[in-house]
């Protein structure tokens, strides 16, 4: 009889089975074998058996390794240590098979042979190794020209949608900006010195395929400022199969489209750049040609003050242009200074902004308040009037 009857159940069925993966790795790795057996025990007991990680890492880096230890090392000695290494993925998660095979070889030698492709922040996650292996692994990574990602109170590994590489809607060069930022802030990425974590995410358009607005402290979301590009012949083609009135025009959030059965008219001044009509008719409509991005800030998971989405800070900037890019970096650094000075321990920037007040925050970083920054103006009368000399 199998030692892992419960997990074996999860080898069945059409979806790729993680149990098969662990078994595959277990063929060459005692560590993965212990993981398998431990996981079976978890399935039996309905509880995890991992202890809090201590601080482990590679020399010169303050983050990038998540320490992990089993709670019952006597029974599962091979996962006594089971640390994770976060390897900074290439922008857009493209790989050559050469590079990927090299990482596999390295990992079979020094680790469990198990990975996450990828972690939810975006890193290439190498799952399970020992403290002793950390330095050798990093030595190998240097040779492979792969650096380590972020963890702790630092810049976390930035990530982006594939943008211009394969998407016609990318309004800025997400992969290039993501890479540039990653390179520029290597020190901040590798040496935690902030009140808490800081995540950069870049999506090429408001579809937000990297969920930047939901999970980045600073979210770059592509947009445009001229008219939607429109090909009337292609619209007519869609009209044959698509209910343009019901499924496009009536679903436009700003109700700025008209369809007379023949001709589609967009009141571009009132378009809120939601992407819906473009998504519905990709051959007929496209974002304008004058493209850039909006910058929003403050998304985070619930702990402590409740989950937040990023909120609008800079409605439009042409970040692909060097000058604008640098101006944005200056603002980012300014924000880091203020947050580092005045942020509380474990206070994300979104929480910080709410605590000090968005207007005060804007003032501190030198941005003018504009109505685009709010869903609506305040509805309570508790206004702090500034007391200039009368």
């Amino acid at each position: 009889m199998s030692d892992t009857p419960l997990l074996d159940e999860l080898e069945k069925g059409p979806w790729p089975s993680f149990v098969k993966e662990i078994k595959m790795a277990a063929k060459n790795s005692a560590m993965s074998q212990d993981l398998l057996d431990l996981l079976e025990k978890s399935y039996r007991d309905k509880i995890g058996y991992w202890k809090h990680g201590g601080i482990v890492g590679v020399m010169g880096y303050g983050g990038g390794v998540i320490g992990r230890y089993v709670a019952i090392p006597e029974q599962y000695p091979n996962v006594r240590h089971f640390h994770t290494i976060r390897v900074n993925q290439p922008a857009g998660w493209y790989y050559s098979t050469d590079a990927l095979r090299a990482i596999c070889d390295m990992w079979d030698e020094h680790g469990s042979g198990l990975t996450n492709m990828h972690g939810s922040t975006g890193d290439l996650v190498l799952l399970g190794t020992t403290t002793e292996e950390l330095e050798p692994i990093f030595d190998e990574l240097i040779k492979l020209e792969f650096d380590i990602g972020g963890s702790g109170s630092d810049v976390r590994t930035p990530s982006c949608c594939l943008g211009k590489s394969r998407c016609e809607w990318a309004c800025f060069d997400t992969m290039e900006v993501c890479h540039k930022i990653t390179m520029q802030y290597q020190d901040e990425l590798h040496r935690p010195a902030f009140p808490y974590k800081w995540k950069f995410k870049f999506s090429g358009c408001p579809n937000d395929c990297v969920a930047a607005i939901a999970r980045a402290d600073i979210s770059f979301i592509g947009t445009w400022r001229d008219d939607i590009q429109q090909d009337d012949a292609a619209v007519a083609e869609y009209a044959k199969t698509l209910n343009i009135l019901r499924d496009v025009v009536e679903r436009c959030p700003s109700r700025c489209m008209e369809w007379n059965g023949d001709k589609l008219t967009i009141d571009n001044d009132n378009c809120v750049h939601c992407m819906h009509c473009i998504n519905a008719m990709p051959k007929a409509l496209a974002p304008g040609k004058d493209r850039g991005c909006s910058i929003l800030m403050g998304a985070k998971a619930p702990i402590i003050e409740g989950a937040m989405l990023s909120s609008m800070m800079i409605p439009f900037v042409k970040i692909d242009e060097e000058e604008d890019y640098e101006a944005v970096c200056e603002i980012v650094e300014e924000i880091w200074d203020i947050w580092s000075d005045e942020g509380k321990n474990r206070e994300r920037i979104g929480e910080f902004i709410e605590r000090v007040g968005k207007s005060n925050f804007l003032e501190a970083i030198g941005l003018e308040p504009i109505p685009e920054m709010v869903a609506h103006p305040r509805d309570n009368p508790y206004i702090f009037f500034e007391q200039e000399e009368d």
Partner: protein
Amino acid sequence: MSFERKTDFGPPHYSRFLPPAIKANYGKWKYHEIVKPGVLVHVSESGDKLFTVRGASGRLTATDKLRMFCDIADKHCDGFLRFTSRHNVEFMTTHEERVDDIIQALADIGHPVGGIGAAITSIVHTQGWVHCHSSATDASGVVKAVMDEVIEYFDGRKPIPGKLRIALACCLNMCGAVHCSDIAILGVHTRPPATDDTQVNKQCEIPNVVAACPTAAIRPSTLEDGTRTVEVDQERCMFCANCFTVCPAMPLNNPTTDGISLWVGGKVSNARSKPTFSKLAVPFIPNNPPRWPEVTSKIITMIEEWSKDALPFERMGEWIERIGWPAFFDRCEIEFTKQHIDDFKHAGLSYNRSAHLRRASYMD
């Protein structure tokens, strides 16, 4: 820094990994079409065409499997491949005739193709019992159990009105964008920390522990023998485990009272409606490994109800907004309880502050 060793060199530049057709058409894509389930074609201004085949992934991947992916990429894709923001694997080719070969090759190693367009794609998820100390449920196992059941919505056999994003996080830290998913599966503890008073002061900084609690349930205390520790006001604790995150001496994991909650109606994209959070659907389902049948069946009900009634493109949350929350609970046969009414900081803003009401059972 006083290291000889190279540091801070960053990730390799992506340009090293782009397939030739992408390099040539970078920034020049004109439009795309869905060729068939799991297959996209992007057409460039130059007329070039690039076919993408999206393969399912369970995310937790052995190096040997990665090598199999590499084999496929070497054979059909000039030696390049990529992964998506939801952890699927993608193979790209300019040769339309290679598409079916790729699909077959993926099938051979157990990876179905799909997740594009109006479909369910793979479940963004976290570590669970495989790696995290904090988890109230497993991640990979629940994901596998759910995806096995909804595979036809992934591979296109069952068409659905729009995209449907499922995500799982194994504790309230919510690694992944669980809080904005059409359906979110969230591991929850339901009992306060079992504080080990002898260890708190040794392993943790008491002021940090006190500050960590969102509901201010924790205060410093001193045992009779003078040991400094913390005390948890059980009435105020809502089991978020943030204390455990900062202090290992306050574990919450528990085999019988840990489990799963289900959330619905969140979204991230700005398409049509604004991005929005998921809302509580089912407060608690006990862990039932290996296949969590109560979880999968509830999820299937929600998908089916949405799928049979939603308009094209209409996401789960948009549909619920249209039909009203009472109808959602009714149609999905979910009981509405105390727990559904918010009682955290902004609770009052979620109350129904209008006389808008649909006719329903309350009327009888």
